[in-house]
């Protein structure tokens, strides 16, 4: 099975817009993400978003891994079994 890699770059946005834009993207690809056919990488520089995005996607049954990359954050969202 090929896994589609999606990317959402919302650097420059602040919460709650970051969360809303991420949720919209997650909603658009929810089936593929839930079935493990896609992984969504969100690039964000709002510190608030590093707590709100993982908490919200966890409630939707997905997992998020957070990494600090220089002056921004990378949030990788995927099915829990295929946690990156």
């Amino acid at each position: 099975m090929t896994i589609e890699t999606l990317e959402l770059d919302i650097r420059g946005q602040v919460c709650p817009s970051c969360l809303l834009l991420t949720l919209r993207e997650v909603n658009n690809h929810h089936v593929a993400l839930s079935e493990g056919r896609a992984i969504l990488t969100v690039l964000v520089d709002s510190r608030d978003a590093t707590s709100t995005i993982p908490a919200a996607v966890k409630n939707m049954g997905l997992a998020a891994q957070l990494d600090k990359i220089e002056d921004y954050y990378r949030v990788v969202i995927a099915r829990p079994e295929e946690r990156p």
Partner: protein
Amino acid sequence: MTNQESSSDMTELERLRAENQRLRALNEQAFGYIRAKVNDLLDVVGTRTLRPEELDDQSMVALDPIGIVATTFRHVLENVRETNRQLQVAHSEIQTIFDTVGSAVLVVDPQRRIVSFNRQASRLLVGHSEDVTGQCCNQVLCEADPTPEQCVFLQVMDTGREAIIRGRQLRDRFFDVIAAPHFDENGRILHVVMAYHDVTEARRVEKMKSEFVSTAAHELRSPLATIMGYADLLLNGPEQSREQTRDCLTLILNRSEHLAHIVSDLLDISRLEAGEGLKLTFEPCRLDLLCREAAWGHQEASDNHPIEFDLPDDGAVVEGDHYALAQILENLLSNAIKYSPRGGTIRIGIRKEQSCCELTVADHGLGMTAEQIAHVFEKFYRANTTNTGVPGTGLGMTIVKYLVDAHHGRIAIDSTPGAGTTVRILLPVEQPVNT
């Protein structure tokens, strides 16, 4: 344009202005309402409010936050439903484990009230099937208020750590009890889970083994003392007549045979324990002659215990292992003599049926209770341990049962305390073809 027409236009303009103001107010009210509801939703999803300076009204509408959050809630709901389904499956599995686990398990709150308990707890601890939820565990289980040394609950509440008490007696049973705290999210003890592992049977077996060691030591030492004494007499004592020497050697031989018999029993049990079984050679055997041979071997004892026979005149043949059948008879006869008072008659009988022979060995000795009969085939079990004058290792009947089973036979015991015991063995005349 006339004055009349100009005045009419002004009136219309005023009306439109007023209408415009009213619509603007309604618009602001609508956006205010939407923003307030969006903020409510954002609060629920765990983020802060959408401030107008970050996102103006038109951009907010274009973003469609209500649509996004609504769809998100749908996905959250689906996830909650799936999680609930998995929790129900897990709960069902845990409940099954809870009820089928060998130990009795009780869960109590910090006030000792029983929160839940499994079937084993009902059977082993409570003693009835009524619901004891909400009752205090010490009132249900303990006959008196337990001390901290006797109570795992008190130990767990005191230390906040797992506690173990071995050999706790509750009613007529013994338990190894393990208890562990279950904490809430604030680190306070929410429940104490107590598991009672029934060790009554293990303790009984341990006691039997312990008794066996002392019995076996005694059994081995007595004939050894005789052998050593008579050997010493022959080597270092005054010169004996030929007849006296013969008597001494006969005693040494008898006692040696007795030792060999005990060692043989131990080896047989050891092999059975190891699952190796016994090698039997099946051939037609005269059961009646084996009975007479066994009695002849106890000729000395039979002076004190008359042996009567009720054997068929035309003999009784069964297909079996000669040595195994002889051992069955030897063990039964030995027991009958040991547990009979002096002068007590022992009766050996054979009754022939179409496809089997019923062998009976009956005595008028001490007899056994129903509980003693229930344990009589267990290894190391001795029914009358208080009667230390009766020698034995507690292995004889275990071996008899095994040998009867190996002959596809059946064994039954009728006994009355003080009146005597009758052992009945049904042996097939022919062994099954694939034996």
